């Protein structure tokens, strides 16, 4: 049983003009994989990530996550899946302004019904994991770009998800800082979490075990090492 299994997945937006973001995509990811999806902008990689992460549903085709058919799940069940199995990291960090790093990370456990004290405790550990133990009480505006992305990663992993999806996590960072973020993600993978990253940076993609290239909504090739 694969952790994630896409078969003949297509996604189109009715428009006008009608856009076919994904066409007949077949993809599998096993537990413990580290996957980079690479492609130029507009190739459909963000749409693919949203469907992989149960944030969106395909127009046709089937998606199975942890052996559940996404098309048969209600909004509540889908949300439950995201809350418990999946962590997201975004290009623009998407931290809550005016809220400390610790509180931002603790939000990652909010929809699991975990009590406030335990949320903060686990958020502290998650921040230590990404190397930000000293920055817990800082506001996002007091952090550098790389530190903000680390906070976002801590928020994604605070609930020990099976899989973390990162959408261009290095897109807004310089090469050196970006490389540090990739280190954090690969360390996570080494600890057993499946990591799926979207990027248009060949160097970043080369560091992952599998590299799937996507072009005009179709999978154009795959390299695995």
């Amino acid at each position, binding site marked *: 049983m694969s952790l994630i299994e896409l078969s003949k997945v297509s996604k189109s937006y009715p428009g006008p003009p009608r856009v076919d973001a994904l066409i007949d995509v077949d993809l599998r990811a096993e537990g413990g994989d580290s996957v980079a999806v690479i492609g130029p*902008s507009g190739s459909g990689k*963000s*749409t693919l990530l*949203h469907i992989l*992460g149960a*944030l*969106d549903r395909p127009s046709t085709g089937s998606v199975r996550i942890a052996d559940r058919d996404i098309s048969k799940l209600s*909004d*509540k*069940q889908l*949300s*439950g*899946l*995201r*809350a*418990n*199995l999946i962590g*997201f990291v*975004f*290009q*623009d960090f*998407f931290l*809550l*302004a*005016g*809220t400390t790093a610790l509180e931002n990370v603790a*939000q*990652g456990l*909010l*929809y*699991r*019904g975990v*009590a*406030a004290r335990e949320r903060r405790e686990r958020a502290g550990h998650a921040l230590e994991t990404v190397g930000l133990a000293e920055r817990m009480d800082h506001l996002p505006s007091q952090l550098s770009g790389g530190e903000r992305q680390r906070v976002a990663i801590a*928020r994604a992993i605070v609930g020990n998800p099976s899989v973390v999806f990162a*959408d*261009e996590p290095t897109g807004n960072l310089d090469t050196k800082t970006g490389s540090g973020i990739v280190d954090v993600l690969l360390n996570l993978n080494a600890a057993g979490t499946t990591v799926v990253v979207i990027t248009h940076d060949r160097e970043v993609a080369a560091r992952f075990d599998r590299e799937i290239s996507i072009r005009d909504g179709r999978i154009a090739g795959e390299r695995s090492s």
Partner: protein
Amino acid sequence: MKSRLLWRDTIGLGYRGILTRRGRSVLTAAGIAIGIAAIVAVLGISASGRADLLAVLDDLGTNLLRVTQGQGILGQSSGFPDGAAEMAGRIGPVSRYSATTLVDTSVRRSELIPELQTSGIGVFTAKDNLLDVLGGTMQEGRFLDAAADRLPVTVLGSVAAQRLGIRALDPQPRVYLGDTWFTVIGIVDALPLHPDLERAAFIGSTIAADLFDTTAAPSAIYLRVNPEVVEDVVDVLPASVNPESPDQVEITRPSDALAARKAAEEALTGLLVALGAVALLVGGVAIANIMVMSVLERRMEIGVRRALGATRGHIRAQFLIESTLLAAAGGVVGVLLGAGITVAFAINRDLTLAVPVAGLFGSIGAALAVGALAGLYPAIRAARIEPAEAVRTG
């Protein structure tokens, strides 16, 4: 595998949403606060006024009748016969009675003031028991008694004393009544049921007859009646006091005037409360407006929360709670403000302070309802935002 948000955390989210946009929250809640303050103040002030009015009614009683001579169909006025007051006094349920007779003269501060300048003060004869029947009290000095009946002394109503510029009896003031100096021996307290007597100067009937040829026929008779049978007494009164033309007798119950005033004030209160409700409604629309804007601005936050596992219901609850808390805060401030206005008003006007408890809780409830209603549409919109759309950056 479920998504679960604790109730405590939902409220915390709403609270945080308000706190992170402090300035805007204050302005938004101000609308609700003004509406609630208006309603609470109006209810409080009218309740205090009503408490006062009822106290006056209780004090003065509702069993006092005032009998006067009206005009016939041709406009002629015959006047009561001599002894009309005694006739009325003989009706069984009448416990006490007194009468006044209008004296055809004027009262002035001195002879230098023209005789026509009466300041609206009438001169009446009065018996020593008048005050007792009316339920009045003395502000200064004493009322007329048997000894004063034939002396040039007078007692002034409260308004009359004020208009004549007399505040104290020491040194003994004098007023020019007709063309004789009269010594003022007393000032009567306010008589809420008898504004005409507040503007009167009372003198004894003997000296009135001597100086001004005043007859013994009364111009107004005051009766205290057994409260149970007031209506029956009203039925037989005209024929008793004026057997010749009973149709010209006018009977009033001064407490009715107060009751009418109370009804009028209640109608006004209703109107003002309605105005407050309109302000509350406008406040609700303002909240709805701001919340719709807030939802648009917070697409990213909504997207992230959905990605973190929030259900549509969680997002809806968060925004609904936020608008309700906002309105509740406005409501609490409004109640405090309204209560403050009421207290200040009551102290300023020397009214008995009455707290309309139902009104207080009612207005908080109204604020909560307005907040929840105002938040409904924005909350539904927020919940409808597609998470994948909200987190898309390029």
